[in-house]
Protein backbone atom coordinates (compact mmCIF):
# COMPACT_ATOMS: atom_id res chain seq x y z
CA UNK A 1 0.00 0.00 0.00
CA UNK A 2 2.66 2.42 1.11
CA UNK A 3 4.66 1.79 -2.06
CA UNK A 4 1.68 2.40 -4.28
CA UNK A 5 0.72 5.55 -2.38
CA UNK A 6 4.24 6.99 -2.61
CA UNK A 7 4.29 6.07 -6.28
CA UNK A 8 1.04 7.92 -6.83
CA UNK A 9 2.44 11.00 -5.10
CA UNK A 10 5.49 11.15 -7.34
CA UNK A 11 3.25 10.15 -10.21
CA UNK A 12 1.38 13.41 -9.67
CA UNK A 13 4.55 15.31 -10.53
CA UNK A 14 5.05 13.25 -13.69
CA UNK A 15 1.41 13.81 -14.49
CA UNK A 16 1.79 17.60 -14.22
CA UNK A 17 4.89 17.62 -16.40
CA UNK A 18 3.24 15.26 -18.90
CA UNK A 19 0.10 17.41 -18.95
CA UNK A 20 2.18 20.43 -19.99
CA UNK A 21 3.92 18.42 -22.70
CA UNK A 22 0.70 17.02 -24.08
CA UNK A 23 -1.08 20.37 -23.98
CA UNK A 24 1.63 21.95 -26.13
CA UNK A 25 1.82 18.92 -28.40
CA UNK A 26 -1.93 18.65 -28.81
CA UNK A 27 -2.33 22.23 -29.91
CA UNK A 28 0.91 22.92 -31.78
CA UNK A 29 2.05 19.38 -32.74
CA UNK A 30 5.49 20.09 -31.34
CA UNK A 31 6.99 17.79 -28.72
CA UNK A 32 8.77 20.30 -26.53
CA UNK A 33 12.08 18.79 -25.43
CA UNK A 34 12.94 22.02 -23.61
CA UNK A 35 9.94 21.50 -21.32
CA UNK A 36 12.05 20.20 -18.44
CA UNK A 37 14.64 22.95 -18.73
CA UNK A 38 11.96 25.61 -18.84
CA UNK A 39 10.54 24.05 -15.67
CA UNK A 40 14.01 24.07 -14.12
CA UNK A 41 14.46 27.79 -14.87
CA UNK A 42 11.05 28.52 -13.38
CA UNK A 43 12.10 26.61 -10.27
CA UNK A 44 15.32 28.63 -10.03
CA UNK A 45 13.31 31.84 -10.32
CA UNK A 46 11.07 30.71 -7.47
CA UNK A 47 14.22 29.95 -5.48
CA UNK A 48 15.48 33.47 -6.09
CA UNK A 49 12.21 34.86 -4.75
CA UNK A 50 12.38 32.52 -1.76
CA UNK A 51 15.99 32.88 -0.70
CA UNK A 52 17.12 36.25 -1.99
CA UNK A 53 13.96 38.24 -1.32
CA UNK A 54 12.61 36.08 1.49
CA UNK A 55 9.10 35.73 0.10
CA UNK A 56 6.80 33.17 1.74
CA UNK A 57 6.52 29.91 -0.17
CA UNK A 58 3.10 30.41 -1.71
CA UNK A 59 3.94 33.95 -2.85
CA UNK A 60 7.14 32.70 -4.46
CA UNK A 61 5.17 29.91 -6.12
CA UNK A 62 2.63 32.39 -7.48
CA UNK A 63 5.29 34.76 -8.79
CA UNK A 64 7.24 31.92 -10.36
CA UNK A 65 4.12 30.72 -12.13
CA UNK A 66 3.47 34.21 -13.41
CA UNK A 67 7.04 34.16 -14.68
CA UNK A 68 6.40 30.76 -16.31
CA UNK A 69 3.35 32.08 -18.16
CA UNK A 70 5.36 34.97 -19.56
CA UNK A 71 8.34 32.69 -20.23
CA UNK A 72 6.14 30.37 -22.30
CA UNK A 73 4.78 33.30 -24.30
CA UNK A 74 8.27 34.71 -24.90
CA UNK A 75 9.61 31.35 -26.12
CA UNK A 76 6.62 31.00 -28.42
CA UNK A 77 6.71 34.53 -29.84
CA UNK A 78 10.48 34.88 -30.16
CA UNK A 79 11.33 31.38 -31.29
CA UNK A 80 8.57 28.93 -32.11
CA UNK A 81 6.24 31.31 -33.92
CA UNK A 82 8.93 32.17 -36.46
CA UNK A 83 9.33 28.55 -37.46
CA UNK A 84 5.67 27.62 -37.27
CA UNK A 85 5.46 26.75 -40.95
CA UNK A 86 8.61 24.62 -40.88
CA UNK A 87 8.27 20.82 -40.79
CA UNK A 88 7.42 19.58 -37.29
CA UNK A 89 10.62 17.59 -37.00
CA UNK A 90 12.66 20.76 -37.50
CA UNK A 91 10.66 22.49 -34.81
CA UNK A 92 11.28 19.59 -32.45
CA UNK A 93 15.01 19.79 -33.11
CA UNK A 94 14.80 23.49 -32.33
CA UNK A 95 13.34 22.68 -28.91
CA UNK A 96 16.34 20.41 -28.37
CA UNK A 97 18.49 23.45 -29.07
CA UNK A 98 16.48 25.43 -26.53
CA UNK A 99 17.10 22.60 -24.05
CA UNK A 100 20.87 23.08 -24.44
CA UNK A 101 20.64 26.85 -24.27
CA UNK A 102 18.51 26.94 -21.12
CA UNK A 103 20.61 24.29 -19.45
CA UNK A 104 23.81 26.18 -20.26
CA UNK A 105 22.45 29.57 -19.23
CA UNK A 106 21.18 28.21 -15.92
CA UNK A 107 24.57 26.62 -15.31
CA UNK A 108 26.35 29.91 -15.99
CA UNK A 109 24.02 31.91 -13.80
CA UNK A 110 23.46 29.59 -10.87
CA UNK A 111 26.20 26.95 -11.16
CA UNK A 112 25.90 23.17 -11.22
CA UNK A 113 26.21 22.62 -7.48
CA UNK A 114 22.92 21.09 -6.28
CA UNK A 115 21.24 23.19 -3.59
CA UNK A 116 18.47 22.14 -1.29
CA UNK A 117 15.03 23.50 -2.07
CA UNK A 118 12.35 23.88 0.58
CA UNK A 119 9.09 22.00 0.61
CA UNK A 120 5.80 23.86 0.64
CA UNK A 121 4.97 22.52 4.10
CA UNK A 122 7.31 21.11 6.67
CA UNK A 123 6.54 18.42 9.14
CA UNK A 124 7.01 14.72 9.65
CA UNK A 125 4.82 12.20 7.88
CA UNK A 126 1.79 11.03 9.81
CA UNK A 127 -0.33 7.95 9.58
CA UNK A 128 -3.42 8.11 7.42
CA UNK A 129 -5.19 4.76 7.45
CA UNK A 130 -2.44 2.27 6.65
CA UNK A 131 -0.06 4.69 4.93
CA UNK A 132 2.37 7.36 5.99
CA UNK A 133 2.00 10.71 4.30
CA UNK A 134 3.37 14.20 4.95
CA UNK A 135 1.55 17.51 4.70
CA UNK A 136 3.72 18.41 1.76
CA UNK A 137 2.71 15.28 -0.09
CA UNK A 138 -0.94 16.04 0.54
CA UNK A 139 -0.26 19.50 -0.87
CA UNK A 140 1.29 17.97 -4.01
CA UNK A 141 -1.64 15.66 -4.58
CA UNK A 142 -4.18 18.38 -3.77
CA UNK A 143 -2.54 20.88 -6.11
CA UNK A 144 -2.48 18.32 -8.91
CA UNK A 145 -6.15 17.53 -8.43
CA UNK A 146 -7.14 21.20 -8.31
CA UNK A 147 -5.17 22.00 -11.45
CA UNK A 148 -6.70 19.10 -13.29
CA UNK A 149 -10.19 20.14 -12.27
CA UNK A 150 -9.42 23.68 -13.37
CA UNK A 151 -8.24 22.37 -16.71
CA UNK A 152 -11.27 20.27 -17.19
CA UNK A 153 -13.54 23.24 -16.47
CA UNK A 154 -11.53 25.53 -18.71
CA UNK A 155 -11.62 23.15 -21.66
CA UNK A 156 -15.18 22.09 -21.16
CA UNK A 157 -17.03 25.26 -20.36
CA UNK A 158 -15.20 28.36 -21.59
CA UNK A 159 -15.07 29.88 -25.03
CA UNK A 160 -11.27 29.94 -24.96
CA UNK A 161 -11.27 26.25 -24.05
CA UNK A 162 -13.58 25.47 -26.95
CA UNK A 163 -11.25 27.38 -29.26
CA UNK A 164 -8.28 25.37 -27.99
CA UNK A 165 -10.05 22.09 -28.50
CA UNK A 166 -11.04 23.13 -32.01
CA UNK A 167 -7.52 24.29 -32.89
CA UNK A 168 -6.07 21.01 -31.67
CA UNK A 169 -8.34 19.12 -34.09
CA UNK A 170 -8.09 21.21 -37.22
CA UNK A 171 -6.00 24.35 -37.43
CA UNK A 172 -7.14 25.47 -40.85
CA UNK A 173 -10.84 25.05 -40.11
CA UNK A 174 -10.33 26.94 -36.83
CA UNK A 175 -8.74 29.82 -38.64
CA UNK A 176 -11.62 29.91 -41.08
CA UNK A 177 -14.03 30.17 -38.15
CA UNK A 178 -12.25 33.28 -36.93
CA UNK A 179 -10.12 31.74 -34.16
CA UNK A 180 -6.76 33.45 -33.85
CA UNK A 181 -4.58 30.40 -33.99
CA UNK A 182 -1.41 32.14 -32.86
CA UNK A 183 -3.30 33.30 -29.76
CA UNK A 184 -4.32 29.74 -29.00
CA UNK A 185 -0.75 28.53 -29.50
CA UNK A 186 0.51 31.26 -27.20
CA UNK A 187 -1.98 30.18 -24.53
CA UNK A 188 -0.88 26.57 -24.84
CA UNK A 189 2.78 27.50 -24.42
CA UNK A 190 2.00 29.76 -21.45
CA UNK A 191 -0.11 27.21 -19.59
CA UNK A 192 2.11 24.28 -20.56
CA UNK A 193 5.18 26.06 -19.21
CA UNK A 194 3.38 26.93 -15.98
CA UNK A 195 2.39 23.29 -15.48
CA UNK A 196 5.98 22.25 -16.03
CA UNK A 197 7.08 24.92 -13.55
CA UNK A 198 4.82 23.49 -10.86
CA UNK A 199 6.23 20.04 -11.54
CA UNK A 200 9.72 21.54 -11.18
CA UNK A 201 8.95 23.11 -7.83
CA UNK A 202 7.52 19.82 -6.59
CA UNK A 203 10.56 17.92 -7.84
CA UNK A 204 13.25 20.20 -6.44
CA UNK A 205 12.87 19.27 -2.74
CA UNK A 206 13.46 15.61 -3.69
CA UNK A 207 16.21 15.87 -6.29
CA UNK A 208 17.82 19.14 -5.13
CA UNK A 209 17.96 22.24 -7.23
CA UNK A 210 20.40 22.12 -10.14
CA UNK A 211 20.34 22.75 -13.89
CA UNK A 212 20.11 19.01 -14.53
CA UNK A 213 17.35 18.31 -12.04
CA UNK A 214 14.58 17.83 -14.61
CA UNK A 215 16.42 15.48 -16.95
CA UNK A 216 15.04 12.26 -15.55
CA UNK A 217 11.65 13.74 -14.71
CA UNK A 218 11.21 14.91 -18.30
CA UNK A 219 12.11 11.50 -19.71
CA UNK A 220 9.65 9.81 -17.40
CA UNK A 221 7.00 12.44 -18.12
CA UNK A 222 7.48 11.74 -21.82
CA UNK A 223 7.08 8.07 -21.05
CA UNK A 224 3.88 8.75 -19.15
CA UNK A 225 2.58 10.92 -21.96
CA UNK A 226 3.31 8.25 -24.57
CA UNK A 227 1.72 5.63 -22.37
CA UNK A 228 -1.41 7.77 -22.15
CA UNK A 229 -1.53 8.32 -25.89
CA UNK A 230 0.23 11.70 -26.21
CA UNK A 231 -2.78 13.55 -27.47
CA UNK A 232 -5.13 12.88 -24.62
CA UNK A 233 -5.04 15.15 -21.57
CA UNK A 234 -6.60 12.63 -19.20
CA UNK A 235 -4.27 10.08 -20.76
CA UNK A 236 -1.26 12.19 -19.78
CA UNK A 237 -2.41 12.31 -16.17
CA UNK A 238 -3.16 8.61 -15.90
CA UNK A 239 0.01 7.71 -17.80
CA UNK A 240 2.03 9.83 -15.36
CA UNK A 241 0.41 8.15 -12.36
CA UNK A 242 0.92 4.63 -13.75
CA UNK A 243 4.57 5.33 -14.43
CA UNK A 244 5.01 6.76 -10.93
CA UNK A 245 3.53 3.70 -9.24
CA UNK A 246 5.30 1.24 -11.51
CA UNK A 247 8.62 2.92 -10.94
CA UNK A 248 8.19 2.76 -7.19
CA UNK A 249 7.24 -0.91 -7.31
CA UNK A 250 10.34 -1.71 -9.34
CA UNK A 251 12.54 0.29 -6.96
CA UNK A 252 11.21 -1.69 -4.03
CA UNK A 253 10.96 -5.21 -5.42
CA UNK A 254 13.78 -5.21 -7.97
CA UNK A 255 16.36 -2.45 -7.65
CA UNK A 256 16.18 1.35 -7.65
CA UNK A 257 18.82 1.55 -10.38
CA UNK A 258 16.66 -0.42 -12.75
CA UNK A 259 13.51 1.66 -12.44
CA UNK A 260 13.97 3.55 -15.71
CA UNK A 261 14.83 0.40 -17.58
CA UNK A 262 11.70 -1.33 -16.36
CA UNK A 263 9.57 1.73 -16.97
CA UNK A 264 10.56 1.74 -20.61
CA UNK A 265 10.09 -1.99 -20.79
CA UNK A 266 6.53 -1.39 -19.61
CA UNK A 267 6.04 1.17 -22.34
CA UNK A 268 7.40 -1.15 -25.00
CA UNK A 269 4.95 -3.81 -23.84
CA UNK A 270 1.99 -1.40 -23.73
CA UNK A 271 2.76 0.06 -27.14
CA UNK A 272 3.22 -3.44 -28.50
CA UNK A 273 -0.31 -4.27 -27.49
CA UNK A 274 -1.84 -0.84 -28.08
CA UNK A 275 0.32 1.22 -30.47
CA UNK A 276 -1.75 4.38 -29.99
CA UNK A 277 -1.24 4.38 -26.21
CA UNK A 278 -3.86 3.67 -23.61
CA UNK A 279 -6.09 6.64 -24.34
CA UNK A 280 -4.93 7.67 -27.80
CA UNK A 281 -7.97 7.40 -29.99
CA UNK A 282 -7.86 6.44 -33.64
CA UNK A 283 -5.73 8.96 -35.45
CA UNK A 284 -7.72 11.63 -37.19
CA UNK A 285 -6.57 11.76 -40.74
CA UNK A 286 -6.12 15.30 -41.92
CA UNK A 287 -7.00 16.03 -45.47
CA UNK A 288 -5.20 18.93 -47.02
Amino acid sequence: MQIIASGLIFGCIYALAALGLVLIFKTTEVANFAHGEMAMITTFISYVFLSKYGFPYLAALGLALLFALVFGIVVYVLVMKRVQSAPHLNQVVLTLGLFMIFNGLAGLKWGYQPTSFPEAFHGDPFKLGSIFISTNEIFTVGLTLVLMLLFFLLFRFTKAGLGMRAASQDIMASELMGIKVSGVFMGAWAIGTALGGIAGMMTAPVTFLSPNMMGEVLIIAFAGAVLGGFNSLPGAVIGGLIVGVFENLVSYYVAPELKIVFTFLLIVVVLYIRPQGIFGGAKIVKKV
Partner: protein
Amino acid sequence: MLKLSDVHVYYGHVHALRGLNMTVEDGKIVSLLGGNGAGKSTTLKMISRLIQPKKGSYEMDGQSMLKDSPSRVVKKGIIHCPENRRVFPLLTVEENLKIGAYSRKDKNVKEDLEKVFLYFPRLKERVKQKAGTLSGGEQQMLAIGRSLMGKPKILLLDEPSLGIAPILVKEIFEIIKKINKDGTSILLVEQNANMALGISDYAYVLENGHIALEGHSQDLRNNDEVRRLYLGG
Protein backbone atom coordinates in the same frame (compact mmCIF):
# COMPACT_ATOMS: atom_id res chain seq x y z
CA MET B 1 -19.70 43.35 -53.24
CA LEU B 2 -16.53 41.31 -53.43
CA LYS B 3 -14.10 42.10 -56.20
CA LEU B 4 -10.84 40.44 -57.28
CA SER B 5 -8.70 42.08 -59.95
CA ASP B 6 -5.64 40.65 -61.63
CA VAL B 7 -4.83 38.30 -58.73
CA HIS B 8 -1.67 36.22 -58.98
CA VAL B 9 -0.88 33.47 -56.48
CA TYR B 10 2.21 31.28 -56.42
CA TYR B 11 2.89 28.05 -54.54
CA GLY B 12 6.66 28.12 -54.58
CA HIS B 13 7.39 28.23 -58.30
CA VAL B 14 3.96 27.06 -59.35
CA HIS B 15 1.89 29.90 -60.77
CA ALA B 16 -1.52 28.85 -59.40
CA LEU B 17 -3.64 31.90 -60.16
CA ARG B 18 -2.70 33.90 -63.24
CA GLY B 19 -4.46 37.22 -63.26
CA LEU B 20 -7.84 36.29 -61.88
CA ASN B 21 -10.72 38.78 -62.24
CA MET B 22 -14.07 38.13 -60.65
CA THR B 23 -16.93 39.82 -58.84
CA VAL B 24 -19.56 38.56 -56.43
CA GLU B 25 -22.44 40.99 -56.35
CA ASP B 26 -24.63 41.37 -53.29
CA GLY B 27 -27.51 38.95 -53.04
CA LYS B 28 -26.34 36.70 -55.87
CA ILE B 29 -25.18 33.12 -56.14
CA VAL B 30 -22.04 32.98 -58.21
CA SER B 31 -20.49 29.66 -59.17
CA LEU B 32 -16.87 29.05 -59.88
CA LEU B 33 -16.41 25.97 -62.06
CA GLY B 34 -13.42 24.14 -63.40
CA GLY B 35 -11.53 20.87 -63.34
CA ASN B 36 -9.12 19.55 -60.75
CA GLY B 37 -6.20 21.86 -60.13
CA ALA B 38 -7.74 24.77 -62.01
CA GLY B 39 -7.34 26.99 -58.94
CA LYS B 40 -10.85 26.99 -57.47
CA SER B 41 -9.91 26.18 -53.90
CA THR B 42 -6.88 28.44 -54.15
CA THR B 43 -9.19 31.31 -55.04
CA LEU B 44 -11.30 30.68 -51.95
CA LYS B 45 -8.24 30.38 -49.72
CA MET B 46 -6.94 33.63 -51.10
CA ILE B 47 -10.27 35.31 -50.35
CA SER B 48 -10.28 34.03 -46.76
CA ARG B 49 -6.65 35.21 -46.46
CA LEU B 50 -5.07 31.84 -45.84
CA ILE B 51 -2.93 32.55 -48.89
CA GLN B 52 -1.28 35.82 -49.78
CA PRO B 53 -1.38 36.88 -53.44
CA LYS B 54 1.83 38.07 -55.05
CA LYS B 55 0.03 40.68 -57.08
CA GLY B 56 -3.46 42.05 -57.57
CA SER B 57 -6.25 43.64 -55.58
CA TYR B 58 -9.01 42.22 -53.43
CA GLU B 59 -11.80 44.48 -52.25
CA MET B 60 -14.95 44.05 -50.20
CA ASP B 61 -17.44 46.93 -50.51
CA GLY B 62 -14.67 49.11 -51.89
CA GLN B 63 -12.22 48.42 -49.06
CA SER B 64 -8.98 46.55 -49.65
CA MET B 65 -8.81 43.30 -47.68
CA LEU B 66 -5.18 42.51 -48.35
CA LYS B 67 -3.98 43.70 -44.95
CA ASP B 68 -6.54 41.69 -42.99
CA SER B 69 -5.89 38.49 -41.07
CA PRO B 70 -8.19 35.48 -41.56
CA SER B 71 -10.02 36.30 -38.34
CA ARG B 72 -10.62 39.91 -39.49
CA VAL B 73 -12.08 38.63 -42.74
CA VAL B 74 -14.49 36.46 -40.75
CA LYS B 75 -15.50 39.49 -38.66
CA LYS B 76 -16.24 41.40 -41.86
CA GLY B 77 -18.69 38.72 -42.88
CA ILE B 78 -16.78 36.69 -45.46
CA ILE B 79 -16.96 33.10 -44.29
CA HIS B 80 -15.30 30.16 -45.97
CA CYS B 81 -16.82 26.71 -45.58
CA PRO B 82 -13.86 24.53 -46.59
CA GLU B 83 -13.58 21.54 -48.89
CA ASN B 84 -14.13 18.14 -47.28
CA ARG B 85 -16.34 19.77 -44.66
CA ARG B 86 -13.68 19.74 -41.95
CA VAL B 87 -16.02 19.74 -39.03
CA PHE B 88 -14.33 19.21 -35.66
CA PRO B 89 -14.84 15.45 -35.27
CA LEU B 90 -14.38 15.26 -31.50
CA LEU B 91 -16.67 18.19 -30.70
CA THR B 92 -20.44 17.80 -30.51
CA VAL B 93 -22.74 19.25 -33.15
CA GLU B 94 -23.64 22.06 -30.78
CA GLU B 95 -19.99 22.86 -30.01
CA ASN B 96 -19.17 22.91 -33.71
CA LEU B 97 -21.92 25.44 -34.26
CA LYS B 98 -20.72 27.55 -31.34
CA ILE B 99 -17.24 27.63 -32.84
CA GLY B 100 -18.85 29.17 -35.90
CA ALA B 101 -19.92 32.10 -33.72
CA TYR B 102 -16.46 32.38 -32.14
CA SER B 103 -15.61 35.79 -33.55
CA ARG B 104 -18.92 37.37 -32.61
CA LYS B 105 -19.31 39.59 -29.59
CA ASP B 106 -23.11 39.88 -29.54
CA LYS B 107 -25.40 37.76 -27.39
CA ASN B 108 -27.80 36.48 -30.07
CA VAL B 109 -25.96 33.22 -30.61
CA LYS B 110 -28.87 31.17 -29.19
CA GLU B 111 -31.33 32.66 -31.69
CA ASP B 112 -29.02 31.97 -34.58
CA LEU B 113 -28.61 28.41 -33.40
CA GLU B 114 -32.36 28.03 -33.80
CA LYS B 115 -32.17 29.58 -37.27
CA VAL B 116 -29.58 27.02 -38.31
CA PHE B 117 -31.83 24.26 -36.99
CA LEU B 118 -34.65 25.63 -39.15
CA TYR B 119 -32.46 25.15 -42.21
CA PHE B 120 -31.16 21.80 -41.01
CA PRO B 121 -33.63 20.03 -38.71
CA ARG B 122 -31.43 16.91 -38.78
CA LEU B 123 -28.76 18.77 -36.85
CA LYS B 124 -31.17 19.50 -34.04
CA GLU B 125 -31.84 15.78 -33.62
CA ARG B 126 -28.13 15.16 -33.30
CA VAL B 127 -27.16 18.20 -31.25
CA LYS B 128 -25.25 16.30 -28.53
CA GLN B 129 -23.65 13.82 -30.90
CA LYS B 130 -19.96 14.01 -31.82
CA ALA B 131 -19.56 15.46 -35.30
CA GLY B 132 -17.26 12.58 -36.30
CA THR B 133 -20.16 10.15 -35.97
CA LEU B 134 -22.36 11.96 -38.52
CA SER B 135 -22.78 10.80 -42.11
CA GLY B 136 -21.03 12.73 -44.88
CA GLY B 137 -24.18 14.59 -45.82
CA GLU B 138 -24.91 15.52 -42.22
CA GLN B 139 -21.34 16.71 -41.78
CA GLN B 140 -21.76 18.94 -44.82
CA MET B 141 -24.94 20.35 -43.30
CA LEU B 142 -23.06 20.95 -40.07
CA ALA B 143 -20.20 22.65 -41.92
CA ILE B 144 -22.63 25.00 -43.65
CA GLY B 145 -24.53 25.59 -40.41
CA ARG B 146 -21.26 26.34 -38.62
CA SER B 147 -20.42 28.96 -41.25
CA LEU B 148 -23.88 30.50 -40.92
CA MET B 149 -23.26 31.01 -37.19
CA GLY B 150 -20.68 33.62 -38.13
CA LYS B 151 -23.41 35.72 -39.82
CA PRO B 152 -21.90 35.77 -43.30
CA LYS B 153 -22.58 38.50 -45.82
CA ILE B 154 -20.82 36.30 -48.33
CA LEU B 155 -20.60 32.56 -47.87
CA LEU B 156 -17.80 30.75 -49.71
CA LEU B 157 -18.78 27.12 -50.28
CA ASP B 158 -16.08 24.73 -51.46
CA GLU B 159 -17.56 21.63 -53.13
CA PRO B 160 -20.57 21.01 -50.91
CA SER B 161 -21.57 18.02 -53.07
CA LEU B 162 -18.26 16.18 -52.69
CA GLY B 163 -18.71 12.56 -51.61
CA ILE B 164 -22.36 12.91 -50.68
CA ALA B 165 -25.34 10.78 -51.68
CA PRO B 166 -27.18 12.37 -54.65
CA ILE B 167 -30.45 12.67 -52.75
CA LEU B 168 -28.73 14.69 -50.02
CA VAL B 169 -26.94 16.83 -52.58
CA LYS B 170 -30.31 17.91 -53.88
CA GLU B 171 -31.50 18.71 -50.38
CA ILE B 172 -28.35 20.69 -49.61
CA PHE B 173 -28.61 22.69 -52.84
CA GLU B 174 -32.22 23.57 -52.01
CA ILE B 175 -31.05 24.86 -48.65
CA ILE B 176 -28.24 26.88 -50.28
CA LYS B 177 -30.88 28.54 -52.44
CA LYS B 178 -32.93 29.31 -49.32
CA ILE B 179 -29.93 30.76 -47.50
CA ASN B 180 -29.33 33.03 -50.48
CA LYS B 181 -32.99 34.11 -50.56
CA ASP B 182 -32.67 35.08 -46.91
CA GLY B 183 -30.00 37.61 -47.86
CA THR B 184 -26.57 35.95 -48.01
CA SER B 185 -24.48 36.17 -51.18
CA ILE B 186 -22.85 32.90 -52.12
CA LEU B 187 -19.70 32.01 -54.00
CA LEU B 188 -20.06 28.35 -54.88
CA VAL B 189 -17.12 26.25 -56.01
CA GLU B 190 -18.25 23.02 -57.65
CA GLN B 191 -17.13 20.15 -59.82
CA ASN B 192 -20.77 19.27 -60.29
CA ALA B 193 -21.33 21.99 -62.89
CA ASN B 194 -24.86 20.91 -63.67
CA MET B 195 -26.11 21.41 -60.15
CA ALA B 196 -24.14 24.63 -59.70
CA LEU B 197 -25.41 26.23 -62.90
CA GLY B 198 -28.90 25.17 -61.88
CA ILE B 199 -28.97 27.39 -58.80
CA SER B 200 -26.54 30.20 -59.58
CA ASP B 201 -27.13 33.58 -61.22
CA TYR B 202 -23.69 34.01 -62.72
CA ALA B 203 -20.77 31.67 -63.30
CA TYR B 204 -17.06 31.72 -63.98
CA VAL B 205 -15.11 28.89 -65.54
CA LEU B 206 -11.55 28.64 -64.30
CA GLU B 207 -8.82 27.01 -66.36
CA ASN B 208 -5.14 26.94 -65.38
CA GLY B 209 -5.52 29.79 -62.96
CA HIS B 210 -7.44 32.27 -65.04
CA ILE B 211 -11.05 32.81 -66.09
CA ALA B 212 -11.60 31.09 -69.41
CA LEU B 213 -15.29 31.85 -69.65
CA GLU B 214 -17.94 33.75 -67.74
CA GLY B 215 -21.58 34.62 -68.10
CA HIS B 216 -25.08 34.18 -66.81
CA SER B 217 -25.55 30.63 -65.62
CA GLN B 218 -28.47 30.11 -67.99
CA ASP B 219 -26.34 31.11 -70.99
CA LEU B 220 -23.43 28.91 -69.91
CA ARG B 221 -25.77 25.95 -69.62
CA ASN B 222 -26.61 26.35 -73.27
CA ASN B 223 -23.02 27.01 -74.35
CA ASP B 224 -21.72 24.13 -76.46
CA GLU B 225 -18.19 24.23 -75.10
CA VAL B 226 -19.34 24.18 -71.50
CA ARG B 227 -21.72 21.33 -72.26
CA ARG B 228 -18.93 19.32 -73.85
CA LEU B 229 -16.33 19.97 -71.13
CA TYR B 230 -18.31 20.16 -67.92
CA LEU B 231 -21.83 18.91 -68.40
CA GLY B 232 -21.01 15.60 -70.04
CA GLY B 233 -22.35 16.30 -73.51
